[in-house]
């Protein structure tokens, strides 16, 4: 009874082989949703079970894992998944983007450019970009097969008709390798350009929906748009108040009930790295002061 009740990285080897076969197929057909036999994981659906299964299938003892949730390394989801793999696979964990070989993410792509030695694993809630326009899965599959993507533009048209501009801010549809329209999971559209021609492998796992898809390294990824309403990445027009960054994606944080708010980098590792390098924002000492005042 000395051996643990579970295998390396939790999943049994047969399951990992099944997931790897789906991954290979997904990489061979960029943007195509490959069905796979998603397993029950020891965490609830919606917590990233798809991403966890993909990570479990590709992780090895020498890998260094980073997990982020909305760009941050220390939210519940990120901490839980990191602990899970440290415990079940005994791998090293890190919060530094450049040190990681596998980065599992929910809702963000790190600010620092990824390299060829890295794999980015996305947790995907709804893999089907056409879902809310065409509820029939049989029909959407056929539309993907025949590359009938007029409907995707209907959504963008509706945005412009209602708001005067393409108001879709996350889940912004992309076309991969000039063929499949793909849902980039709920990352902000700010991150869409980072997917294009990316050096790292990008893998997407949707546990509830039982789908895996992928973007191989250096693949063309284009955000859909209209000629007269081109794709524009969105970010709050402010510098990060902790590190002063002018080009990172920002979180808006409400600080009191009188309309006070601050903008800080969503990518916590990037922000800390800049602060360590001596960059400061306008409010760098504010959180600490507040803590001191509260006693």
């Amino acid at each position: 009874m000395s051996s643990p009740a579970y295998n390396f990285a939790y999943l049994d080897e047969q399951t990992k082989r099944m997931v790897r076969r789906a991954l290979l197929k997904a990489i061979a057909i960029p943007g195509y949703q490959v069905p796979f036999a998603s397993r029950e994981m020891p965490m609830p659906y919606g917590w990233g079970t798809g991403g966890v299964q993909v990570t479990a299938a590709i992780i090895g003892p020498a890998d260094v894992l980073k997990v982020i949730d909305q760009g941050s390394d220390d939210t519940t989801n990120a901490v839980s998944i990191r602990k899970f793999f440290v415990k079940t696979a005994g791998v090293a964990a890190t919060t530094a983007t450049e040190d990681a070989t596998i980065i599992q993410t929910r809702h963000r792509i790190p600010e620092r450019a990824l390299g060829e030695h890295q794999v980015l694993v996305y947790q995907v809630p709804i893999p089907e970009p056409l879902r809310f326009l065409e509820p029939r899965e049989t029909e959407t599959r056929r539309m993907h097969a025949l590359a009938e993507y007029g409907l995707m533009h209907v959504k963008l048209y509706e945005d412009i008709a209602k708001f005067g501009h393409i108001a879709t801010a996350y889940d912004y549809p992309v076309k991969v390798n000039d063929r499949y329209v793909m849902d980039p999971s709920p990352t902000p559209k700010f991150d869409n350009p980072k997917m294009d021609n990316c050096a790292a492998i990008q893998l997407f796992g949707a546990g509830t929906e039982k789908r895996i898809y992928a973007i191989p390294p250096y693949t063309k990824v284009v955000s859909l748009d209209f000629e007269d309403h081109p794709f524009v990445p969105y970010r709050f027009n402010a510098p990060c108040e902790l590190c002063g960054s002018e080009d990172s994606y920002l979180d808006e944080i409400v600080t009191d009930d009188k309309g006070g708010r601050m903008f800080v980098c969503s990518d916590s590792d990037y922000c800390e790295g800049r602060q360590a390098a001596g960059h400061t924002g306008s409010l760098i000492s504010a959180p600490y002061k507040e803590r001191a005042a509260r006693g």
Partner: protein
Amino acid sequence: MANQNLRENDEPLLIADDLSKSFGKIIACQDVSFKLYPGEILAIVGESGSGKSTLLQILSGQQSSGQGRVSYRMRDGVTRDLSTLGEAERRFLFRTDWGYVRQDPAQGLRMAVSAGANVGERLMAVGWNHYGRIRAAASSWLERVEIDVARIDDTPRTYSGGMRQRLQIARNLVTQPRLVFMDEPTGGLDVSVQARLLDVLRNLVRELHLAVVIVTHDLAVARLLSDRLLVMKGGQVIETGLTDQVLDDPAEHYTQLLVSSILSP
């Protein structure tokens, strides 16, 4: 040019050849053959259950026929058997060169998206990628079917039944199809709304030189719109001919019954 047009119009657009279809023991249609020429309007009339709608679905490739075949002259002038088309080709044909107007507009429209997007969808599907141009095309089509352009951003849910039906027609005609199938387009509308719809339809059909196959149980609609009539009963075509001729001087007993059952005020 005129000569060429003449020759164009001499060749049939759609050929139904000996179509039969049965569901188990029930015969939906049997040995139906006809030719439809460009710009011609053919009405299929008969009581419910006579196989009209099944025939329309077979003609438009939405259902396979048990026997016989449907051929269509494509835009390049080649007449092809529809069953030999691949699925991609058939679907492309369906959303460019053909239209299909359903009885219930909720089935033919996307009820949750605006009227403009409903009309623009087919254009976007064939690669239009300029918002301004798509919107301009949608506006001009709304005008043509007599819908107030100010309602372009409203969803069809907020439209009346007659407006929905006219919107469905605009949505189908935006790619300038050559052939339109209509399944009881005036069913469920009250009489004055029907009249307006028929008026719009009649003008558009002549203006655009559309070929139409229209299924209806309403002989008045057939009289107003169609050039030729096909009377069906129990899955069989029992009488065909020019509309006025069939309605004024019906030969078959059943057709006589049908004509005489119309109430005239």
